[in-house]
């Protein structure tokens, strides 16, 4: 990647010219980090365990499976995910501005919001106070 200011050749992926500090990808579209919206969610189990939903635009909820190289962002293994029928890639929590939606990723045992089953791959809004169930594992949604 050639710097437009000083013509120095920089490695692909570099953001600023190593020689003169000029921005290398002027056309790059900047993604705001989700955290900047200031809202963050926590999922709480009935026995009081809290799982923070990482501050990013897409958060995978499921069960860790190192053999298949699956490491969900919110890992429900320790909350009895296996016993409660949570799939490895069960659902995705999307952040859309200040709002959150849940998308079931075609899980075996389904995703429920306030006891109502949601359609796979159709995003449904969630907000603090809601109950979301992955398979048989029920969690309440709170603001962090």
């Amino acid at each position: 990647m050639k710097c437009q200011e000083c013509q120095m050749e920089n490695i692909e992926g570099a953001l600023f010219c190593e020689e003169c500090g000029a921005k290398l990808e002027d056309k790059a579209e900047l993604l705001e980090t989700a955290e900047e919206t200031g809202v963050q969610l926590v999922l709480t189990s009935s026995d009081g365990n809290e799982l923070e939903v990482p501050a990013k635009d897409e958060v995978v909820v499921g069960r860790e499976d190192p053999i298949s190289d699956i490491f969900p962002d919110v890992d429900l293994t320790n909350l009895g995910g296996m016993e409660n029928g949570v799939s490895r890639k069960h659902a995705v929590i999307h952040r859309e501005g200040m709002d959150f939606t849940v998308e079931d990723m075609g899980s075996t045992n389904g995703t429920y919001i306030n006891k109502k089953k949601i359609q796979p791959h159709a995003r449904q809004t969630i907000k603090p106070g809601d109950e979301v169930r992955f398979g048989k594992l029920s969690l309440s949604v709170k603001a962090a």
Partner: protein
Amino acid sequence: MKSELKVQCIMSKDTPPAAETEQAIYSLVKIEAGSGAALGTLPANIALVLDRSGSMDGEKMEHLKEAVGYVVDHLSDTDLISVTIFDDQVETLIPSQPAKNRNEIKTRIAGVIPRGGTQISDGLKEGMREVRKGRSQDRINRIVLLTDGQTWDDEDACLKVADEAGKEAIAITSIGLGEDWNEKLLLGIAEKSRGNSHWIQNPISILEAFQQEVEGMQSVAATNLNVIARMSDGVKPIKIYSTVPMIADISKKAIKGNTIGMTLGSFDGRKGQAILIESRIPAHQEGRFRLGQVEVTYDLPATGMKGQSVKTDLFVTYTGDTAAAAKVNAEVMNLVEKVSAFKLQTRALTEVEAGNIVAATRKLEAAATVLLDLGEKDLAEAAEREILSLKKTGALSAAGTKKLEYGTRKLTMAMTGAMKK
């Protein structure tokens, strides 16, 4: 599962282009206090090492005495404090003791009369002796050094003490007052001991620096903070920067093959910590790729818990979609730009020292442009003034050098301000 520390990894690109050559990627590892963190539960063990050379006479000494009074008033009875004063001789004014004898400490400080020259290393050694008396893993062990002068040919001895302090988890905060002191030395002392450094132009600000120090000690959420990143085969870490309390290039110490390991000392729960890792990632076809795993370990002496650990994976998904491949995370971009300003400034100073005025000027011009782009008008103007000074005299001004050295290193502190809860 309330965590004491939250670790978040953000990549410059979540979806880099599937390419046939290796490419650069930046990972920001953000460490913040979690919902289960308790701040300020650890008692302090602080040694003040203060310059009383002749040049400290008048306003400087008056404000210093006031600032020491503040420290004494804001420590709790179980905290330990010692006060060492130095010129070309050293005196332990207050040997290490619980901070409860407040009036006595203040009375003794009030009697200090400036005199003599400046020999920092002897003062530091004595401060180390005092802080070691109460040194414990269950305390925040710290030395605060304040000077307004050039030390007498004992820079190496000072750095040696700082190195020892770092190994013993005693952070040194070095404070330079006015313009006639060696910023390279004071920054070196802070970096080697994993401490902080401040430049104070006006004696009235001594109090503020000491306040920050006391507040910092009372915000410690964990000690013995270590970050280990194990990168996958084919991933090459190139540069590592820690950015709190100031930007420091720790690549040399931290990178061993494709593993990165760093010891960061005590963790300030209000400021947090942010590590920038620049790596080369291999050519790869479309699909998900695990860059490696970051593990953060720490101790919580207040609860007796040692070696707590948080792990998180670094992933990217190589893509053939050019629009997706062009997307860059704004937060990482901003941090890389600040580090870029710091690097240009540092290189400019190295070129000045080597007598390469033309190259130094070019680097400073580049730094000024980046600083302006970052919205740091004040610092950009300082760089412009130094460019003029270089062109006219072939040298930088003492104040300008300090402003740029401290200003670019602390560019990240505005960001960590936003990390506050």
